[in-house]
């Protein structure tokens, strides 16, 4: 790719009068040797699957294998359709859709990792609800995914996108930044405004730890996806309004790296700290383990090793 930083990405977009999406599509074609039409067709297929995940999460029973999660998307959708959500209809609809996709994920349904499965609800939540609201074409949305991908590419290569490496700021945080920047472009904002939206969004999740109960992508991952979608809408609005990230977005990404590297392992997807180790988190974990036979060691010889080690 011709860009390593958000600044370089925005500069190419400005100099060549191309959208972020167009820059990403061209660079992807050049890097992989795959024809442009195939690249766009694959992303279009991914967008179809995102819409399908939203639909499933809102209309079908989604209970996870552990039984710890499911059914919250429908509750929020009911509030949107039959009540008065405090955050307004568009925000709470994005929230319901994001919850829906994350619940489908937890129930072993099909999703697109954006950038990971743990953060797979935010981009579909923002994209599908915005498409319905603004009447955008699928083609427009697919371009938006390339814009989100370009932003994610920079974050992933300069910091982290996995909770095991950099905490939840790297997963949910990255997804919020990607969704916010892409939404600015989808709504006709400039590349510069999109980059500010990314920085504004990422600042708000710096330090977010990854502390899933029983190590499963459910508590608190699903609600963080719902709230993340709302944050992405808000950050895009700030960017579109002309609010600037006083600390340049690339520098915010480097802070994510700094904070993630310093994060104790108990707060990086191990289930050994944070919400996972609260009294309730421990109780839920014990409940899941009850009656479940632990795996036998791989051989008798190995079993001896385990005994000795203990």
């Amino acid at each position, binding site marked *: 790719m011709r860009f390593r930083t958000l600044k370089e990405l925005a500069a190419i977009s400005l100099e060549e009068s191309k959208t972020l999406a167009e820059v990403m599509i061209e660079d992807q074609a050049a890097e992989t040797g795959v024809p442009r039409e195939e690249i766009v067709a694959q992303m279009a297929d991914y967008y179809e699957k995102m819409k399908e995940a939203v639909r499933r999460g809102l209309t079908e029973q989604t209970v996870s294998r552990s039984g710890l999660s499911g059914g919250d998307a429908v509750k929020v959708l009911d509030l949107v359709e039959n009540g008065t959500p405090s955050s307004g209809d568009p925000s709470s609809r994005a929230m319901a859709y994001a919850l829906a996709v994350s619940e489908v994920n937890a129930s072993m349904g099909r999703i697109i990792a954006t*950038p990971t499965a743990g953060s797979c609800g935010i981009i579909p939540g923002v994209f599908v609800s915005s498409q319905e609201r603004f009447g955008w074409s699928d083609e427009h949305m697919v371009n938006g995914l390339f814009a989100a991908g370009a932003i994610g590419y920079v974050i*992933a290569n300069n910091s982290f*996108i996995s909770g*095991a*490496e950099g905490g939840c700021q790297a997963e949910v945080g990255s997804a919020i930044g990607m969704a916010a920047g892409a939404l600015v472009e989808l709504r006709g904002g400039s590349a510069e405004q999109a980059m500010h939206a990314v920085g504004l969004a990422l600042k708000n999740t710096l330090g977010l730890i990854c502390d899933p109960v029983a190590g499963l992508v*459910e508590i608190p991952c699903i609600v963080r996806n719902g709230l993340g979608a709302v944050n992405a809408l808000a950050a895009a609005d700030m960017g579109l309004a002309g609010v600037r990230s006083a600390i340049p977005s690339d520098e915010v990404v480097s802070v994510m790296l700094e904070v993630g590297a310093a994060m104790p392992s108990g707060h990086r997807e191990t289930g050994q700290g944070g919400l996972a180790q609260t009294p309730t988190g421990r109780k839920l974990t014990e409940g899941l383990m009850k009656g*479940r036979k632990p795996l036998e060691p791989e051989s008798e010889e190995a079993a001896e090793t385990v005994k000795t080690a203990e």
Partner: protein
Amino acid sequence: MRFKNVFSIIGPSMVGPSSSHTAGAVRIGLIGRQLLGEEPVSAKIALYGSFAETYWGHGTDLALAGGLLGYATDDARIAEALEEAARREIEIVFVKGVGMAPHPNTAKLELTAADGRSAQVLGASIGGGNIMIHEMNGFDVRCSGEYPTIVVLHHDRPGVIASLTAILSDSETNIGYMGVDRKGRSAEAMTVMELDSVPGQDLLQRLRGISDVIEVIVINLNSREAQSQ
């Protein structure tokens, strides 16, 4: 650049809940199936670290079984993969891996085919559904499965690798990465080559024709079999 491609950020298409514990596990299973060259009749799967601790909630067991059955990462049948394996009379046993593993999310697969042949894979799921194979059939060799990969079992003799690369060069096939390991001096060796293009049958036949080459296997997570239906 650790991530080279927009689809490593948006994607893969997968069944949940975890890109590393589920999608990556499917891919490790698929590589085992491809290394064996057919569907196994039995499998002993050792889970290490976080795979061993959280496999049940993440469906890592279902995902590995799905890979052995030839499912892609987004195949809806993954959720019933163990039942399907039982229907196909494939015996799958899960055990806890003991000792050092290269990564917190690691699985070791020991597979047996109907005719008694066996294959062994040690693979790590390194995040976002990406994997790294660390060991195949006891050889310390690496591959990611992202590129068409040729796995060559051969005798450790002077000139074998030169013969392999000469044939690839002759067919204008570019090697992106290559690794070699041997059981001992003049014993059996394995050479793994990640290619920029899918090797054709002619090329494979020529490689198999080299004296001292015992077996040539192709591994490719992007092959038609490994794609969603």
